[in-house]
């Protein structure tokens, strides 16, 4: 099967600043993808490019083997919930569903009504009177009722309280289990991503730092601690993601598919949060490093 999202050297520039650069990704279908990275890393830019709200400055992007947002049928295949789950404050829930039905050729009215009923919402209520959690659920309902093959969500749970957040993710996972859509969502909450995602993309400093299946990432990253150690002594198949030293001890985060045999180090598993932080820290350090070094 072809990739849900495929980018090649994708870049987006605003004025002189590149919000996203040299982004090359291939995301297989049927995944729930977590997109993480610091603020300003280019997450929203990448999501907006993937739904066709932005056009690339460089490179190419294909979503479900088509150009994002170029044809009505392409638009129908992708559901999108923008940051802060925007709805029309003056329109009722019913109005939103009717609007959705007129705008979308593949609209599933039964699914929409069942979800609204399941949430215990009164269809006559105006969106402006809903709580943050309810509004997010309404936005999700509109996005899933068009029965998309890909659902794109920009920080859907960032502003929600823990209960509303859990309920939102429960609803989202239920939709995935029942209808099998692929999902790309951005979030800062790694504990949430660990539950719901099976694929991860770390974006920092406008570049993709790492991307892959979460199980695979956790299997191939290790924390090594041992006596102070010269990194040049490491085998060539071990890629050092981060290192820190005290006068006695060296701690390394290393990526390798092979077993680590060096008896000088004790080897521990990384959790997802540490893994993400290691890549984010590395990107931040590279950003601060004087550019002179490049000439060496």
């Amino acid at each position, binding site marked *: 099967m072809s990739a849900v999202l495929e980018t090649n050297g994708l870049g987006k520039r605003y004025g002189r600043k590149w919000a996203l650069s040299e982004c090359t990704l291939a995301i297989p279908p049927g995944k*729930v993808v977590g997109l993480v990275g610091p603020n300003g890393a280019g997450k929203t830019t990448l999501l907006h490019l993937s739904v066709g709200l932005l056009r690339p400055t460089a490179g190419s992007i294909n979503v479900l083997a088509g150009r994002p947002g170029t044809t009505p049928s392409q638009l129908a295949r992708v559901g999108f919930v923008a940051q802060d789950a925007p709805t029309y404050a003056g329109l009722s829930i019913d109005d939103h569903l009717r609007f959705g039905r007129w705008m979308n050729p593949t609209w599933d009215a039964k699914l929409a009504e069942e979800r609204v009923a399941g949430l215990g919402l009164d269809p006559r209520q105006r969106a402006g009177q809903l709580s943050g959690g309810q509004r997010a659920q309404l936005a999700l309902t509109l996005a899933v009722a068009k029965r998309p093959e890909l659902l794109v969500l920009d920080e859907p749970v960032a502003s929600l309280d823990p209960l509303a957040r859990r309920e939102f993710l429960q609803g989202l*996972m239920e939709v995935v289990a029942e209808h099998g859509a692929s999902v790309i969502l951005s979030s800062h909450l790694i504990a949430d991503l660990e*539950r*719901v995602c099976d694929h991860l993309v770390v974006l920092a400093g406008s570049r993709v730092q790492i991307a892959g299946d979460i199980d695979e990432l*956790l299997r191939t990253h290790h924390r090594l601690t041992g006596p102070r150690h010269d990194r040049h002594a490491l085998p060539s198949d071990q890629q050092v993601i981060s290192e820190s030293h005290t006068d006695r001890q060296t701690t390394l985060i290393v990526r390798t598919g092979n077993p680590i045999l060096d008896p000088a180090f004790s080897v521990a598993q990384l959790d997802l949060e540490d893994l993400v932080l290691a890549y984010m820290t590395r990107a931040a350090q590279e950003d601060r490093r004087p550019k002179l070094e490049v000439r060496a």
Partner: protein
Amino acid sequence: MIEFHLDSRSGVAPYLQVVHQVRQALRLGLLGEGDQLPTVKDVVARLAINPNTVLKAYRELEHDGLVAARPGIGTFVTRTLSDASLAAHAGLRRELLRWFAEARRAGLDDESIEALFRDGFRAASTEDVA
């Protein structure tokens, strides 16, 4: 029917936690032959976890010959892990709890109790082998 829960700080992969919980329920007699496991949709709707996680766990249990999927209906237990020893569990558990209480009265903290328990367990296992 059983309910799953996830410990996000345990460091154990979520799918393995589901596998362990089913095996545990089978061992303790909470699940028996013919019982249905929660549907994938029910599990994800309750735990807010990725459906693939549940599918992976159920596939592993199926591979171990413990459950079988009936397409369109659900996943059912085909073999149990509890045996004749189940009847003895309650009494043994009572004695174990009494032992824990005694250890605590003697002033042992959690770490010492666990160390002593493991040590005793290991000693008993090697005696069995010998």
